[in-house]
């Protein structure tokens, strides 16, 4: 059934940051299937509609997809050769790869006409996360497509049951929250609603496997697991930073909390760099959504709003380089930090760095950076040694890190208690696959 469904698929918002990655994953799998089923085929059976309102960005999408498809074919050359073994005209790897890419380009249909989706069996929607927009787009598609068409929405925080109801897609919509960039990040949070039939859930599981994703089920509560943890973790970081600001100044406090979260906690990047990566505007949007749907908890940050007011947005350029946010970057490495009071970036000089390091105190002797540990087979043992020492230390850095780690653990416990995550393991899975953490909030390390 899935193979049949993968004959005609559409991606909506295909040229966007998330849409282009989702398009790539689907195109890879659909082309692979097409070649396996029909090695001799000149005109492919399958169609992947790449729908975006903007014609110009669609051209950009193709120029992104083509080299990516070449790379996929190069990597999967052994399987492709096997699938094309009956084609005596294709001998060299180069010929096999060319065939795959040409076939993919015939399967891909970049279009700004949403009516092209009418025969699609599956639709992946990845438009900007605004309920009204999602409602408008999805209900429009529901009118165009057959009642059997199934929908996946790349939604990171709005409850799926709300979208489903608004778009009149009860039982036909699953939340499929990819992480950025979708072609690289293996995590997909899957959110079903009480109306989702089991057959659809099963299909969604199969697609995840085909796209080589790690699926983690999340309950339909705004923010789900990933943003449920990230947003609260980030708010805590902002809060701690503001507490230090009076004594140390805001710029230094940002740097200090960023160092605590990156170095002392052995994460791939500090919390403020992560907020920059996601985009302050996106964080604000998620905050608003979560605040709107979650009762008994206030989720907002005046600081983020003030930053946005000052024109600081973060996020990335289309080439993946980082825009200015809490930090300014050179080659994705922070080189200056924003001072909101003075509305200016302060260079992260050696003296500023060493002042912060002096304040924080020394890292435990067992410390190894995330980059080193992430490739180490014995990382658990090494992290255990590090955290054991950290929890015996009482430097300012150690105290801040311990409190931060305990807060992260509390967030995780609340996600499980609140039924958003099925288990602490699922929270860990999300943080390791979606955020590249080397350990879960609940662990045996500390």
């Amino acid at each position: 059934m899935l193979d049949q469904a993968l004959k005609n698929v559409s991606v909506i918002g295909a040229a966007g940051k998330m849409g282009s990655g989702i398009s790539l994953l689907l195109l890879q799998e659909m082309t692979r299937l097409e070649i396996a089923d029909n090695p001799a085929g000149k005109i492919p059976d399958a169609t992947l509609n790449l729908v975006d309102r903007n014609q110009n960005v669609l051209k950009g999408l193709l120029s992104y997809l083509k080299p990516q498809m070449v790379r996929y074919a190069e990597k999967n050359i052994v399987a492709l050769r096997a699938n094309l073994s009956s084609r005596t005209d294709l001998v060299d790897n180069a010929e096999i790869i060319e065939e795959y890419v040409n076939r993919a380009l015939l399967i891909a249909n970049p279009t700004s006409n949403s009516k092209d989706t009418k025969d699609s069996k599956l639709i992946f929607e990845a438009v900007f996360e605004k309920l009204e927009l999602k409602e408008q787009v999805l209900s429009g598609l529901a009118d165009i497509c057959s009642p059997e068409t199934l929908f996946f929405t790349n939604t990171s925080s709005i409850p799926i049951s709300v979208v489903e109801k608004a778009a009149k897609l009860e039982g036909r919509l699953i939340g499929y929250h990819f992480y950025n960039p979708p072609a690289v990040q293996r995590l997909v949070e899957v959110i079903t609603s009480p109306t989702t039939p089991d057959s659809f859930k099963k299909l969604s599981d199969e697609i995840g496997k085909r796209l080589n994703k790690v699926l983690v089920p999340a309950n339909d509560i705004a923010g789900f697991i990933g943003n449920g943890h990230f947003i609260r973790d980030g708010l805590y970081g902002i809060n701690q930073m503001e507490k230090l600001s009076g004594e140390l100044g805001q710029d230094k406090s940002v740097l200090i909390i960023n160092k605590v979260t990156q170095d002392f906690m052995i994460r791939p990047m500090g919390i403020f760099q992560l907020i920059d990566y996601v985009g302050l505007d996106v964080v604000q949007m998620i905050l608003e959504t979560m605040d709107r749907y979650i009762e008994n908890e206030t989720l907002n940050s005046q600081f983020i709003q003030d930053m946005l007011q000052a024109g600081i947005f973060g996020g990335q350029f289309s080439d993946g380089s980082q825009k200015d946010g809490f930090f300014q970057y050179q080659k994705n490495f922070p080189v200056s930090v924003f001072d909101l009071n003075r509305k200016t970036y302060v260079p992260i000089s050696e003296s500023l760095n060493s002042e912060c390091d002096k304040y924080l105190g020394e890292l435990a002797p067992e410390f190894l950076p995330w980059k080193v540990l992430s490739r180490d087979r014995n990382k658990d043992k090494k992290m255990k040694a590090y955290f054991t020492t950290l929890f015996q230390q009482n430097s300012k850095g150690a105290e801040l890190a311990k409190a931060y780690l305990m807060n992260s653990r509390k967030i995780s416990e609340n996600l499980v208690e609140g039924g958003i995550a099925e288990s602490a393991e699922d929270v860990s899975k999300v943080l390791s696959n979606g955020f590249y953490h080397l350990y879960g909030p609940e662990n045996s390390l500390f």
Partner: protein
Amino acid sequence: MKALRKKVYVAAGYNTMFFGPGRKEFHPKKPMRAFEDYLNETFQGTCDQLVNTDFDEGVFTNFAAMRFIRQGNLPGFLPYLSKSLKGKSCTRVEGACGSGGLGIAAAVKTILSELADSVLVVGGEIQNSMKSVYGADVLSAAGYYKGDRKDGHAYFFPGVFSDRAGTYGSVYDKDLMRQGMAKWYELAVTSSRKNPKSQEHHNSVEDLFGLGMTPPNGKIFMDHLNLFDCSKVSDGASSLVVASEEGLKKLGVELEDAIEISGFASAEGDITEKPADPTVLDITKIAAEKALLMAGITISDLAMLELHDCFSIAALIALETIGFAKKGKGAEFLLEGNTKVSGKIPTNMSGGLCGFGHPVGVSGVRQMVDLLHQLTDKAEQQVAYKNPFGMMVCMGGDDKTVSVFVTRKNQS
């Protein structure tokens, strides 16, 4: 086999760095040295050892410049390097990975024919101009393209030698074979660490044997070979001079700085045929026997060896085929340390194809340069030899184009 009708010498050898994955400075997306750059360096290296640099003829050895860098008509690079060769006879020799050995053999024959007293031999190859998935297409031409490429492995030659290892492991002790191959990798890297020009020079892995023991996995690579069993993808060049005694005098080379070719043989197999017994290298056997006979010695007279280890299994089988180890005992021979610098037959002291690198059409020339350095006591990892003989085996394709040389230290 008749002895050589006159004395033929090799002198003024030079190897450039062999560049590619493994070197710290290697980055596939950064600009790399050009073909001409390697050629100029090696030629200069050879000339620096000569008083006069007038050559009578030239031989260029290369396998696949036509595809890797779209350059044909390679003899034209010899007068580009040496103005003395303008208007003289220059030849390009191609026998896949056996090109280097075959080129030296051509030069030796030219000296024997008395048409020339000195022949400049230059090997040059660029392979990092394309990703290995496409490079495999190019290199597969060393096999029988029409008959075997389509059904061959995507990476072709690792597949060919993986099949040999598969058969070997089913006939003899498979675990021991794996240990022997791991030992080969360990020795190749250990020797490379002493050779600053080698591709594995920067390899700082502590447990090389353990790495070599990585179980092969057909799903990600080969059924019977792991990545450490394979030689490198390399750019590089080597050069030397083949000369008569008269030629050496003209070039201003002292006899003690040259070595003598005391026996050689090139042997060819039918490229369309599969090996009758994959645990043996038939053509290598023939070439080695002929060369030894011509030199009038046996393998027990040899003090050192240069083997064509395009894959560790090829080296292991070659050791048995030539007679250093009994059939099925090659791994034990290696594990006992017989090929180490202090062993019975020190082998590939500069790292071999697995460690130094394997710019395919250059390797034979590189092997001869290293024998020259050993027998003139200029090697980085010098063997303390008693007997004055060394031997090199250069193989093209799956034991198809094989050249073997027995060389001798000059007694001054």
